[in-house]
């Protein structure tokens, strides 16, 4: 038996190192991307992106002075708009609320859907903190949320002028998100 190993055996011995190095390089790129935002394992895109909003017809929130919301109202628009799922019981909704108010004063149309929330409590929430919404639909059983593939509240969708869903964000809209995502997208689809 020869003591010096054949070239094939040599290559085999190097294989683990090579595979580990390649995986390590991949992980390093992922970590870099994590801090710059280029890689995000949690950002699962909505299956509805690029598709029209699903059919729905929601009654208005009694006492809020705003009409209800149907899918038909989200087609053939003059400008892109936001659809925001909220609930009075949701703490992050309170966090994003100032951003919604600011967007509304800037003239961005925002449609609200009160998700699994008692109408009186949703109304109390809006009375206390202000209403950024042009229209409000009440989705008490949460069925429309299922149709939209909702993760939870708050969740915000951007609808372009043709009524197609262009962007979805699960979680509270922070100032950074508005600056980095919402504002450019609104300009792009204007």
């Amino acid at each position, binding site marked *: *038996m020869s*003591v*010096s*190993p054949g070239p094939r*055996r*040599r290559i085999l*011995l*190097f294989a*683990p*190192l090579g595979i*580990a*190095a390649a*995986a*390590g390089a*991949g*992980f*390093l*790129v*992922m*970590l870099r*991307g*994590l*801090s710059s935002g280029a*890689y995000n*394992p*949690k*950002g*699962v*895109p909505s299956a509805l992106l690029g598709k029209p909003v699903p059919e729905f017809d929601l009654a208005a929130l009694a006492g809020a002075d705003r009409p209800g919301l149907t899918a038909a109202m989200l087609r053939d628009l003059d400008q892109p708009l936001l659809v925001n799922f909220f609930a009075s019981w949701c703490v992050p909704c309170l966090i994003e609320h100032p951003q919604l108010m600011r967007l509304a004063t800037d003239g961005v149309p925002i449609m609200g859907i009160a998700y699994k929330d008692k109408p009186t409590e949703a109304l109390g929430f809006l009375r206390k903190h202000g209403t950024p919404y042009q229209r409000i639909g009440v989705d008490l059983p949460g069925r429309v949320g299922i149709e939209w593939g909702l993760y939870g509240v708050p969740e915000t969708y951007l609808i372009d002028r043709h009524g197609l869903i262009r962007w979805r964000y699960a979680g509270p809209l922070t100032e950074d998100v508005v600056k980095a995502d919402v504002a450019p997208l609104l300009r792009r689809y204007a």
Partner: protein
Amino acid sequence: MIAELGHFALALALALSIAQSFVGLLGARWADARLMGATGPLAAGILIATGGAFACLIWSFVTNDTTVANVVMNSHSAKPLLYKVSGSWGSHEGSMVLWVLILALCGGAVAAFGQGLPSVLHARVQAVLALVGVGFLAFILATSNPFDRVWPPAPDGQGLNPILQDPGLAFHPPLLYLGYVGFAVTFAFAVAALLEGRVDAAWGRWVRPWALAAWSFLTLGIALGSWWAYYELGWGGYWFWDPVENASLLPWLAGCALLHSAVVVEKRDALKTWTVFLALLAFGLSLLGTFLVRSGVLTSVHAFANDPARGVFILGLLGCYIGGGFALFAWRAAAMVPTGIFAPLSREGALVLNNLLLCSLAAVVLAGTLYPMFADLLLGEKISVGAPFFNTATLPLVVPLVLAMAVGPLLPWKRATLWPALLRLWWVALAGVGGYFGCLAIAGARLGPALGFAAACWLIAGAGADISDRLALFSRPRAAWARAKGLPRAAWGAAIAHAGLGVMILGLAGMGLATDRLVVLHPGESAELAGNTYTLRRIEDVNGANFTARQAIIEVSRQGQPRVVLAPQKRNFPLARMTTSEAAIHTTWLADLYAVLGEEREGGAVLRLHHNPLAPWIWLGAAIMALGSALSLSDRRMRISAPVRKLAKEAVRA
């Protein structure tokens, strides 16, 4: 003061570890007996320092020292004492301290039990263990100091995740870490062997107990985690192919392969390069798991402190240890001349088959775990790989593995013929067929579970055949008792561990027949499931130590005979602002009756009822596997692996 002492002890452990790695490596290189002799005391010193640091951490938690940031984040004065203690390793920082403590324990154990080791090998093993310790201590001190102070002190801690306040989870991380870190020892042995350029039967004898110990702790740790998920999370499932679960399964598979291939090194002086590779791989996969869980590169239901900066540090450590180990392997493994030549049909051939199958399984699980991440990175595609992939991809590997598990132990070393072994297995095969048709008869046309029952019967009967064959139970029954006493414990242990897998598969197959129902019941109404009648009596409020709960009282009866009262709860923890669901489980040998309370609606309650046949056998099987390997560990041959020490003892006696 105590916290500073703990911080100082960590720094001291780092300094001692650095010293240890130099002393060990240089001592072995120069063959300097005094330097090499210092590695044992240094290992003890590292153990004392890390043990002191860990004690300080526990002290801070038990006294609820709210000037320590880690305590504020993870504890609360109102928590029961057990969870204050377990909270010390519940956080990222604390768990890293536990990690280095267990590493130091391993170093101490190698020093204590390793007096018979060749001193050069011992010094190198200690040095490599210390090198691993250096990396992780530096990681703790640089990025995750558990003793950071906050001033002014917080009024009280912010509680711990109530889901984690559970005895099952209190002991899940320590057991898991004993497994992960135990593979650091086999890693150290492998690196020392590569440095020496020599692997012999004695090396195999030394590596095997460590692989065995690490593997059985890992078995227990994984089983405990899965059991916890089963009874605490209230999903009724036990294994979800979640990336974090897979991360613990990978070293388990590699370690299982390692402890089998180490037998071949020991008995036949063959398969050396491969065994060294497996030893490197098992620890590498343990580290990979640590990295995946803590860096935030993947999504999982398990969340630790996800921090890319820490991720970079851990990746650097991975590069040093895995990269260094494999580089050394590529450079030095060629020096290890393969000596044993063996026939494919033999005990060692069967063990090679076992290794191939186990490693293929590990490769499948690894690919399934990492593929979504790399697909996202390279192709920009969001994919999730779930249970359907893992179930279909692992099944073709598990079936031959199970088939070979009963045959392999009956084959003699060196050269065997298959036919006599198969002849001795006829009644085992009959048991398997019996299990198959028995299941079909009881449960109807359910092929998957029936195959599971067949596999379980085959394995358990196969383990029996192995033992009866060794005892010559049928050919010479009179001498069987004497032979049973003389049979090495390792043989008993192997058979028991194999049977344990059979018991586990029995449980898995039973769970394949599980049924569940989602019902809305008003008080007084009942629902039927699997022959049992579940009647909701009332829904009430109860108060616990640090929670309030809604509790449903469900009476279960069978054919009019009351069996048991189940009381599932929905607990609300005001401090943590969390609601958890506490499943009610009634365990019998045949099945678990499992009820979960959901939302309440118009006076009624949403109840999820599960009937899980044989569910407890899954964890019973895991416990039996661990028991088998513990028995194997207690084998005399493991202890006399130190011939020098034995001689020394005999000299003392004389």
